[in-house]
């Protein structure tokens, strides 16, 4: 156990945001879901008691008859904004006084940094380079993430849960987002920061970053495992495997989208275009963890090998 190595990584000034992220993301997940569960209890109570649903103010916030429904922005909101500005300023000041921004040696194109890492918020993408070729990891996937985020409001046909925290009414969307944001985005940033060492090799936290370490991992392509040697055979085989994955994943996602009676009700509201869009984005998103497993556990590099591109 090399605690010094661990401390070197964690205390690297540019890694401090990730350490911060590892605390604030779980905290705010808990903070949000706690309110979601409180609202769910209220919803269950109101569903069971239609009479109460007519008279209740339908919030978990306290309410008494005679209270004004609205408050003045000045001072009730502006004082909070003022306080927040002061707190953020203080936080930033203290952080800036106690910790110096990193400055390495002057740039030198002839001396490659090892490991040379992107800024922390792009480390998820850099980690993806292990599993996909640069044209997928660096160009296609980021574009799909951006477009995928943009289409969310237009494919989510669930009218419930608009303007309040809830889990029960939005299970599918909340799981999807938490999977994409926390499991894929944040976790891959953490892996790229804390675990990837020299040569972008996997070093468990606490092990020494050995610059002389060699990895004799022999990566195989899926067609090779099945003994397919011919180029044309590899192209056809890869296309078939990818095609099967798309069909199986689509069926699986379809099953999950129709798991409960409520989910089926939402599914019926969706147009064909919405269903297809959601399917495409979810299938491609799910291919990432599958490729990670294939690569890390089974040492499979490519599924589909062609002379022009590899997947």
């Amino acid at each position, binding site marked *: 156990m090399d605690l010094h190595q661990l401390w070197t990584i964690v205390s690297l000034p540019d890694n401090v*945001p990730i350490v911060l992220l590892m605390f604030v993301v779980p905290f705010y997940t808990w903070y949000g879901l706690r309110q979601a569960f409180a609202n769910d209890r209220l919803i269950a109570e109101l569903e069971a008691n239609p009479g109460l649903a007519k008279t209740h103010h339908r919030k978990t916030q306290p309410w008494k008859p005679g209270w004004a429904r609205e408050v003045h*922005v000045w001072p009730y909101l502006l004082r909070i904004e003022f306080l927040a500005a002061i707190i953020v300023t203080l936080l930033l000041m203290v952080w*800036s006084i106690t910790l110096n921004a990193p400055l*390495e040696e002057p*740039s030198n194109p002839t001396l*490659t940094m090892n490991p040379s890492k992107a800024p922390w918020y792009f480390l998820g993408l850099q980690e993806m380079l292990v599993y996909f070729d640069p044209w997928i990891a660096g160009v296609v996937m980021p574009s799909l993430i951006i477009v995928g985020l943009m289409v969310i409001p237009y494919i989510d*046909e669930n009218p419930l849960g608009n303007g309040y925290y809830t889990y029960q009414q939005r299970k599918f969307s909340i799981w999807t987002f938490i999977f994409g944001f926390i499991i894929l985005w944040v976790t891959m940033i953490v892996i790229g920061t804390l675990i990837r060492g020299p040569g972008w090799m996997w070093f468990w936290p606490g092990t020494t970053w050995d610059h002389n370490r060699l990895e004799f991992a022999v990566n195989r392509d899926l067609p090779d495992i099945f003994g397919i040697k011919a180029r044309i055979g590899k192209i056809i085989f890869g296309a078939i495997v990818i095609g099967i994955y798309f069909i199986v994943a689509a069926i699986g996602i379809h099953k999950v989208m129709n798991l409960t009676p409520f989910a089926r009700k939402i599914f019926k509201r969706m147009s064909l275009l919405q269903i297809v869009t959601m399917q495409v984005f979810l299938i491609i998103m799910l291919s990432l963890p599958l490729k990670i497993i294939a690569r890390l556990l089974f040492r499979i590099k490519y599924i589909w090998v062609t002379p022009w591109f590899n997947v």
Partner: protein
Amino acid sequence: MAEGNGSKGPDGNGAGGPGENGGKKSPVTVLVEGAKAVQAQAAEEIKALKQPEKTDVWKSVLRVKHDETPRSRALGVLSNVFLHLHPAKINRDAVAYSYTWGMGGMTFYVYITLVFTGTLLMFYYHPSKVVAFRDILYLEHDVPFGKLLRNMHRWGAHLMVIMVELHMFRVFLTGSYKKPRQFNWVVGVILLVLTLLLSFTGYLLPDDQLGFWAVTVGTNMARATPLLGHDGPFGHQLGMTPFNDVRFGLLGGSIVDANALLRAYIWHCVAIPIIASAFMVVHFWRVRKDGGISGPAPVQLESEMKEPRKL
């Protein structure tokens, strides 16, 4: 004024007493009388200054009365250019920190801090390969508070990325992207991308090993762009070389060098801030136009769900 003259009258008579005896007023008496009149007028005007809100200067600056009436409180917000994005009154529960986490507002505040510190940094920085690194050394060791300035800019940028991601997380968990706020979510996604690009372009500017290799790794992905990169699928077939592909356009060259530094500088300091500011204006304006912040709204019940409108 009339009252002032009246009170001056008796004094004038008393002082004029000796003058009448001499037939003519002596110059000294005239002078004393004049001085007393000025004194009385000054005393009167000073008395008026105890109520500064009655002066014309005050009224010209603030335009409206600021007394303890609800109307004045509302006007104090609505007629102020910096505060007019707020409504006069908001839902009493909307000020709850637990609902909004304050992340959107704090992001904007950190952005302002970054514009401020960034402008100050620009006074000491030349975007040139020859002096860029030396400028940073100069900033860190000779410029008063230069180190603090750079640290605040660096950590502020990291903080902004974290806050933007948490803001998006909150907006998702509360379902705030749902009708009628769909488009504002799209604007928000664009702002997220612009935030990352702002941070990324700033990474190169110190011209040290860290920034140089991070940007090299980052822009190397562009060479793999399908069709438009010389390493990407079908790029070669379309005649892409390192000297005419999309990466060349980003860097202004085939390697990260002087042109790349200048381009990063202009994108970082001029172009992206202007574009981001424009999107921020739309983002905030849409928050108001879409009916203010989304909640905490009263919970909706599944049993009361309306049938969707068919096209």
